[in-house]
């Protein structure tokens, strides 16, 4: 399946509702601010352990507080498959060069992740996820990673809005 590899700030046209980071339909309101992240030189094995342990599907890759990429369960699975297949063929058990313990995350991550800002609307996030077939979008303020918004977060925003009478106020 084709994936974006050359994007940065998503072009979200009319839905980039600049209603303020705390607006009831803003990404800032619905994102998860406490994001699990990983560093570019951490190993693929470490990333995978973190994803399984936290039951998440993607990890923003951060260097000195700046978002430099994103790695998904699919990226990691593909890396693992390639390695376990060749290890089986070679009959090796010890971590060898090219094993998940030695491959850095930066070798398998998407380098220029699609991002939105805290002021972007959740509708823009939903459209981006659908168009690009991605499960989550990192939220950045300038270059700093400030959160992540997932399909579940967006779903929650829609549902709360629907059940609270549409205006978007959830309180």
């Amino acid at each position, binding site marked *: 399946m084709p994936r974006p590899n050359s994007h940065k700030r998503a072009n979200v046209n009319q839905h980039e509702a600049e209603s303020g980071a705390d607006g009831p339909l803003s990404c800032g309101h619905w994102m998860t601010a406490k994001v699990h992240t990983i560093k570019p030189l951490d190993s693929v094995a470490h990333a995978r352990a973190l994803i*399984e342990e936290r039951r998440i599907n993607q990890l923003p890759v951060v260097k000195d507080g700046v978002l430099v990429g994103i790695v998904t*369960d699919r990226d990691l699975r593909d890396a693992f498959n390639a390695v*376990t297949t060749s290890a089986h063929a070679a009959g090796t058990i010890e971590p060898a060069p090219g094993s998940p313990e030695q491959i850095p995350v930066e070798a398998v991550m998407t380098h220029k992740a699609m991002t939105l800002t805290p002021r972007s609307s959740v509708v823009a996030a*939903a*459209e981006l996820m659908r168009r690009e077939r991605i499960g989550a979008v990192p939220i950045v303020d300038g270059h700093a990673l400030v959160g992540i918004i997932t*399909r579940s977060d967006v*779903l929650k925003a*829609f549902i709360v809005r629907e*059940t609270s009478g549409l205006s978007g106020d959830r309180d």
Partner: protein
Amino acid sequence: MTRNPSHVRLTDTLAAARMIMQAEGFKHLPVVETKRVLGVITDRDVRQHAAHLDETLVETAMTADPVTVSPDTSIEEAASVMLVKRIGCLPVVQNGGLVGIITVTDLLRALLDIARVHGH
């Protein structure tokens, strides 16, 4: 929802399940015997047995007795169930038999369409 979705049986191997997931781009497959939904198997379940895909049966890795919905269930209700239970898909069952599967992606698409109609 996706009607008549691909599915696996209890005695299929995880290797077979993974092949279907990768070929068709699904992360979840219902586990079905004589039309009845007995479980759901996800790519995460498969990953956890990555070293033994050829020897492990779907039955030992699946979530048994999954939460299901009917074709009449509202989008909002299906979404609430997924959020509360932290699951990514719901088999759709009618008269005791599998008729479809609905995922978070399906729900987001539907809700986007609704939002567009309302002018958001």
